[in-house]
């Protein structure tokens, strides 16, 4: 799915997949930190955004 999104022009850094057990609080924190850092490094997304006006 990530590959098809990238094929359509969505930056791969915007889509993340992870498997985290409910017992893995520290892994959850690490993953969320990494995701938010990588997404923040990108320009605001303008693709696949619905314009309601």
């Amino acid at each position: 799915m990530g590959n098809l999104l990238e094929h359509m022009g969505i930056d791969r850094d915007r889509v993340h997949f992870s498997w985290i057990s409910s017992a893995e609080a520290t892994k959850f924190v690490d993953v969320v930190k990494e995701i938010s850092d990588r997404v923040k490094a990108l320009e605001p997304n303008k693709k696949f955004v619905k314009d309601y006006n």
Partner: protein
Amino acid sequence: MDTCIKKIRELSADLLEKGEVEKVIGFAEGTIPMATSPIAIQSKKDVEKLVFNSTCGLNLANYVSRANYVAGEKGKIAIIAKGCDSRNIVTHIVENQIQRDQIYIIGVPCSGMVDKHKISRLFEDEVIDFSEDNDSLIVSSRLKTLTLKKQDYLRGNCLYCTHKNPVIHDVLATDPVEEQSLENPFPDVDLIEALDLDAKWQYFENLTKNCIRCYACRNACPLCYCPTCFVDESSPQWVGKGQNKTDVNTFHFLRAFHCAGRCTDCGACVEACPMGINVRDFTRKLNKDSLELFGWEAGLDVTKRPPLDAYSPDDPDDFIK
């Protein structure tokens, strides 16, 4: 093609007469040139209605899925199957839509179907006649008549087809044709992959800009047999139903992904599209991934489960953290 249709009619008449099948699903002449429509023949006297030529681009496997199977029907159904139709029949069997013994497959080795949009573009006015003579196509409008080489006007999916012969059949209508082996079966996908992200996005925005959301691509697709499609669902409503381009792209993206690892690249979606959109650009990427990541081509073996339906410890997992 002439001998092939004779054989198809003979076989169909024989099956109907002996009562071995309830009906034969095949192609009939369409109402306009360069088009054929699916037909179900129930009586021997109607077999003359069956045709087979280079405009039989729809996929008849669409008409034998459980959703289309008439409730309570006991007898067998015979179906005319090109290479791709036969692969979709295999997919139906694997996905438990039909049982192998419910159908009688009349296999037709296929030399490819023609791209009617490409042909129409050669004429300023409307095409009024289409006929074939071996490898030539004779196409006329009111202004002119052209004789074309069929090989030059094949549909994109037929050009890269490596399964022209039915993979599963009870009888073949003609001798098998030679299969081609391609060094690169996905040159069209590579072209898009070579673009940068913004150009890719622009490519797909342009591709779908004429989409009228008629869902002909979905309806023509043998994989799309869900009783209620996600686009028709109203509670919850997964995707907007109008012409908003984000909704249009969401529809195309999700439709394609629902076909991941199942699509046989039969081209029925493109054939059915009234706006001439090459919707295969979405599914082709998934077919390429299926082949590269899982060594998988859909609909070749009734004993194998599709990759997204089975787990193996060897599955590629570098995308997951």
